[in-house]
């Protein structure tokens, strides 16, 4: 006899089974295989004949940590996350406030317009931005020259390439976070603002004491997703600079891609992927911890 509880549990599992099966086959299995790969020197030779495969323990990880290129890539990725992340969140919040403001006419139009870069193909965007960044004919340098700024070789100068990539990435991505912030803003009950206004709070005070605290959960979500996404920066440098000049825009995922799919060092590339995973996990935990401490 199956008891009613047991029965319910069984039917629960039955309903979950298709989804679990899919996740197991298409997610856990590949991840486990990649983990196993990261302890081997799987490469083009091993692809032809498994006799040429060696289990090398943690060698890939050690080699990775000793590789200057990995540290350069990690540094660049950190730069991208630390500068680009907050910038993106701030700009999307600002845009959300503007679009959501009672004074803005045609906010639906602005919402769509600002969201457009998110749905535009990155490669097309990159081609246009490459023209904008052109040192001699670029619109950006032309604009700056009106203020007497010397032309900047945006993508060619090792010091400017990463800021240029960040600028483009933020422009491309902020629309998504903006939409989430708008949803968060619309969830704040209007009577709170009314009450604050009656009490004589100015716009800044309203923002500081009503908007920000009530946006807290939205903020956390946006910050986490942006950070995780920015840690995985790949497409922007891949199409704009291919990691150059002098590897100043080489990111960890780009390094992983090059090692894995350009040079077919699957073992080494898998190791890079797991190191990045560990870093993202640690950074996420840290951010959650800070948030918890901040709210208590």
């Amino acid at each position: 006899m199956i008891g009613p509880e047991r029965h319910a549990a069984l039917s629960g599992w039955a309903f979950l089974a298709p989804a679990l099966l899919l996740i197991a086959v298409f997610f856990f299995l590949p991840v486990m295989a990649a983990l196993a790969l990261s302890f081997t020197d799987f490469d083009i030779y091993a692809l032809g004949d498994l006799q040429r495969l060696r289990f090398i323990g943690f060698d890939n990880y050690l080699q990775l940590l000793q590789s200057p290129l990995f540290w350069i890539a990690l540094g660049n990725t950190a730069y991208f996350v630390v500068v680009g992340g907050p910038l993106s969140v701030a700009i999307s919040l600002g845009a959300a406030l503007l679009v959501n403001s009672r004074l803005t006419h045609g906010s639906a139009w602005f919402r769509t317009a600002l969201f457009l870069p998110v749905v535009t193909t990155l490669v097309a965007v990159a081609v246009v931005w490459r023209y904008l960044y052109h040192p001699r004919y670029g619109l950006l340098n032309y604009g700056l020259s009106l203020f007497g700024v010397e032309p900047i070789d945006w993508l060619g100068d090792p010091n400017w390439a990463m800021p240029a990539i960040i600028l483009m990435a933020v422009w491309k991505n902020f629309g998504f976070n903006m939409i989430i912030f708008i949803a968060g803003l619309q969830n704040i009950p209007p009577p709170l603002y009314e009450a604050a206004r009656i009490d004589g709070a100015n716009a800044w005070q309203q923002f500081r004491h009503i908007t920000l605290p009530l946006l807290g959960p939205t903020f956390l979500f946006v910050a986490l997703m942006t950070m995780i996404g920015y840690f995985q920066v790949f497409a922007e440098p891949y199409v704009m600079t291919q990691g150059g000049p002098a590897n100043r825009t080489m990111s960890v995922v780009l390094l992983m891609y090059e090692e894995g799919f350009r040079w077919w060092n699957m073992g080494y590339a898998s190791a890079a992927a797991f190191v990045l995973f560990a870093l993202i996990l640690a950074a996420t935990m840290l951010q959650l911890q800070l948030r918890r401490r901040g709210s208590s």
Partner: protein
Amino acid sequence: MFSRRWFGVGRITITLSIMFPMFRLLSPIILLVLGLAGCDSGADRMVTVEFWAMGQEGERVRMLLPEFERRHPGIRVRVQQLPWSAAHEKLLTAYVGRTMPDIFQLGNTWIPEFVALRAIAPLDERLRTGSNLALHDYFPGILATNRLNGHTYALPWYVDTRLFFYRSDLLAAAGFSTPPTGWDGWRQAMTRLKGLAGPDRYAILLPINEWQLPVILALQCGAPLLRDQDRYGDFRDPRFRAAFAFYLGLFESDLAPPVSNAQMANLYQEFANGSFALYVTGPWNIGEFGRRLPAAIQPDWNTAPLPGFDDAPPCPGQDPENGAIGVSLAGGASLALARTSPRQEAAWLLLEFLAEPAQQAHFYQLTGDLPARQTAWNDPALAGNRHAQAFRQQLQHVQATPPIPEWERIAHRIAYYAELAIRKQMSVDEALTALDRDVDQILAKRRWLLERGLIP
């Protein structure tokens, strides 16, 4: 489709039904069943060859195929067109998934890799017996890239090498009405071009993310690149060092701008407006320059073989005769048969067909790809192309890069350290020491495999 076998079976059935009346009732059914089976076996006899080719070649080669199918009525060819950017990955994935085509195009620098994978069927046997392929008709340096450890694994389809594209009007303005000879002469010309061009313009464009020119210069100096059966890097060799320093000198003297390919928003515009007068590039740009440069510039550009180092520094000890034309890279695409293909006979017929000089010349007209067979160059369309003639000369002076799967990766490191040295982030000696160290590490697996006899 009714095949001869069907008629055979039909005849037996009819005979039987005459002999046994019972059979008369069944015979229509038997005929029907066997007839259907006969249909199948008829389709079996029609061989379909799967052919993978890249980019525009994959598109245009279809126009050659009706003639092939007319000559071989039993063979149909199915062409799959792969984009160049995904081709390498797709071929490897097909190899892993055991869905290799019967015949495929591949860059000739990929051959060592596919040989290491044992994905390619050697052609020695077919070339020895009953083939009318005249191997001596191929450019020898190009054919050499298709041979490995004494076996021929593929045949060149079209060829590729690097040489000068230059603005003849700017060169004339600098006092050279005919192209100079030797690197000495070209270097002088570049200095004068730069003098006329001013601070914003340059004599030559050498994208710093490309490894080709430093490697070409090293080959011209006789540098071995790798040592001990390609087990270790040999970049601190004085000949490589000399070539490397010469290359860096072009940037140091401000003759070339330190820019990468990705930064060139529109190369053709820049060439047209004189941002640079010289460019080292390959045959595909004959067509591109013809299409993309404004009409006014069309008479003012030309091609020239790469110069060599005559006995002068930086590469002393070079044969003075080398001065006129220096070696360049033996590039191009080849055709190979998959080792696992059950249709190698038919695929080989297709390979032989595409190698015919007449087809090669026709293919040139369709694509602009330069033929690998020298007789095909006598075709009036190609003989009349003034920009192609320098390539014909250059192709007699080409040399292969080390035939190992790791080469692309090594070449990439060369460009990387050259860039660091150009940007003065490393001295020449630091760059070459680091390059040797990286390359030794890249070759570690190869050394292990050689030690255990797992690769020849």
